């Protein structure tokens, strides 16, 4: 593949993310990977549901007292918005508008970073209350489920940062278009998982 081949919005393929065989392979492979990730999170959800509110005798924490929905609501909005901005970026990818794509992806990354900071704050707040990882089965399950999601966000941030910097000077080609596109798939996936965390962990924790 010729990395230096220049395109115009007219010659740029309609689906640049799967315009070559290698790209098609990555595209399908990444979808399958996300299928595996779904099962991975499903296992963590099942474990969390089984161990919710469970601790040693005299255990003093419950989901009702612990979680604070306003903070979680802000986090949810940040992440959902970041998914929207990544959609804008993909729109510009399809239209071969490199600058705007980079801009929207940078905004996506910043929103993701803000989300992650709030999550760190949330965790440290709980730890301050004595709700540590080692405190109980409930705490282990909570930190592992939500933390695994947070870890995925962090991985996504490193990924997109490297991608933005690496390609800053050279624009779009059929080689890196797939990379940008799979990142956006990943980012949507993280968002979907968060929707489930918001529902199963926080909403059902406070209300249910």
């Amino acid at each position: 593949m010729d990395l230096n081949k220049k395109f115009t919005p007219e010659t740029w393929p309609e689906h640049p993310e799967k315009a070559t065989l290698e790209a098609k392979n990555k595209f399908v492979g990444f979808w399958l990977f996300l299928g595996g990730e779904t099962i991975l999170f499903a296992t963590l959800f099942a474990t969390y549901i089984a161990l919710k509110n469970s601790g040693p005798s005299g255990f003093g924490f419950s989901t009702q007292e612990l979680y604070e929905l306003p903070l979680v609501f802000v986090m949810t909005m940040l992440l959902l918005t970041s998914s929207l901005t990544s959609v804008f970026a993909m729109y510009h990818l399809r239209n071969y508008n490199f600058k705007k794509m980079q801009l929207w992806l940078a905004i996506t990354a910043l929103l993701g970073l803000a989300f992650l900071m709030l999550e760190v704050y949330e965790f440290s707040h709980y730890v301050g209350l004595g709700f540590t990882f080692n405190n109980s089965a409930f705490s282990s399950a909570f930190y592992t489920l939500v933390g695994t999601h947070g870890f995925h966000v962090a991985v996504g941030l490193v990924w997109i940062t490297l991608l933005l910097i690496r390609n800053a000077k050279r624009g779009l080609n059929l080689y890196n278009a797939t990379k940008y596109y799979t990142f956006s798939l990943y980012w949507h996936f993280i968002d979907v998982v968060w929707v489930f965390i918001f529902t199963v962990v926080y909403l059902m924790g406070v209300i249910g």
Partner: protein
Amino acid sequence: MSSVAQKKSFGATLWDWLTTVDHKKIGILYFLGGGFFFVIGGIEAMLIRWQLHKPDNDFVSAGLYNDLITMHGTTMIFLAAMPLLFGFMNAIVPLQIGARDVAFPFLNSLGFWMFFFGGLFLNISWFIGEVPDAGWTSYASLSLASQGHGIDFYAIGLQIAGGGTLMAGINFLVTIINMRAPGMTYMRMPLFTWTTFVASAMILFAFPPLTIGLFLLTFDRMFGGNFFNHEMGGNTIIWEHIFWIFGHPEVYILILPAFGIFSEIFSIFSRKRLFGYPSMVFATVLIGFLGFMVWAHHMFTVGLGPTANAIFAVATMAIAVPTGVKIFNWLLTIWGGSITVTTPMLYALGFIPSFVMGGVTGVMQGAAPLDYQLHDSYFIVAHFHYVIVGGVVLAILAATHLYWPKMFGTMLNEALGKVTFWFFFIGFHMTFLIQHWLGFWGMPRRVWKFMPNQGWDMANLISTIGAFFMAIGVIVLVYNVIITSIKNVKVANDPWGDGRTLEWAIESPPLYYNFAQTPLVRGLDSVWIEKMEGNASGLTPAEPVKDIHMPNGSIIPLLMSLGLFIAGFGAMFRTETEWGLGVLIFGLVFTFIAMAARSLQDDTGYYIKKEEILRDLKRKGGQN
């Protein structure tokens, strides 16, 4: 593999193998790695049988016996059976679908090295003297109480190896979905490709639960987690569920490719199209689906209640239906065929009665009330060895003979192959048939010694003698491999003479780009069709000779796996040594840098020039 033989230095050859992304070479690496661990697991089995050959034996201690059974099971499943099957999948599946490589050659290499370093990590426990000892299932109630680092070796080693397996699964799925030659529709794919496809889909959905289970175990043991610790609100049954949600599909992941291998063999050596091909495909998919629905039949005695037990009992017995369909299809493939009893065919013929016996005892255990009686007895040991050895291992041995010429360019000696078969086959039945009765007579599994005069003495002795027969069979096979490699008599494209699928229409071993021209597939058993219509080459090209795109080799997969290997030791010794945390961080950073290096460099591969392909074609007389 250029036409002019070039003498390469040892260093260059080694570097070539360490950095290879060629699916044929990675297939051989898997085969060698899996073979190595197969021998280790076999030695462990022999030690177990020697300990049990007479009552009150003091050959090994109780603790060492626990180490041996745990490592035997873990090694054979994860480090021998799966990699050996992956070896054949790598070597053969891309050829069967007319592809030049797998979809992700780099990932393929990474998968191999992660398996290899994971296996190495697990086995280093022998040298440290703290070996996994909670059984291959590593139930949390046992594994949390286990002293020393044995279970940590298990959890981290399998985590690394399991990651490699998941990559291999995704890789085969994408390869089969995207890279089939023109005309190779799904319903024209050879059955080994079909079973690889379904087994890979099962890997994709079965291995993530194992990943999570091992992480939870690691957290509990090394980082103060409380998932399985009931004193802190945890629940030990969670591990059992997670393990078997992975573990039951895992045995189908092993047996489906074995079914595929036997389907190829029956068809080739009966000179007939596989009977009921569409029903074979359907049965494969159905087994793959049902494989996820039955995990709790391993937990009938846990106390999930009669409703759960009944549901899982029925689901379990339902699997006998598609499996029965397969058995009858194989029998009807042989029926009326023009049969040649070669070594692979011998294995295939031996497989049918052996596997049916294992299947029938499986249905017996599927009946929950009976399972209460059979649970944790030698009947269980007999059953799963009948399906794993009588199914998977026979398939691996059969495939070793069948595909040896395609992988190495020379034939294994047929006479010695038949000697191996008879020793192994008789030894196998001698070892495990009697264990059904040992179970009925009340002998529990996983005990390191038994008292004399309970009626078990003779049966155990017979079983041990059988194990030695199997060992002799394997030694003859190794001898066979050595002498045929030394003689190295080159063979033609189709040494068996009746190859039906694309891999038999190209050189043995194939050139590194496999097909000079991508073939056109006009039906099931494409090569057979071409030959019947008078096309001696067996191939109709679908494209003119042109430049071929190939991937570059890379050392990065090995480095990434090495980083994880190092990090594993750091995680394990984190709490008790000063260097532990540092080593953990170093290993992870090392892996991350290797990953970043891979991401940041543009690696778009290279092109083989048309002239070179034309030159190769000319040397071979114009054929592929």
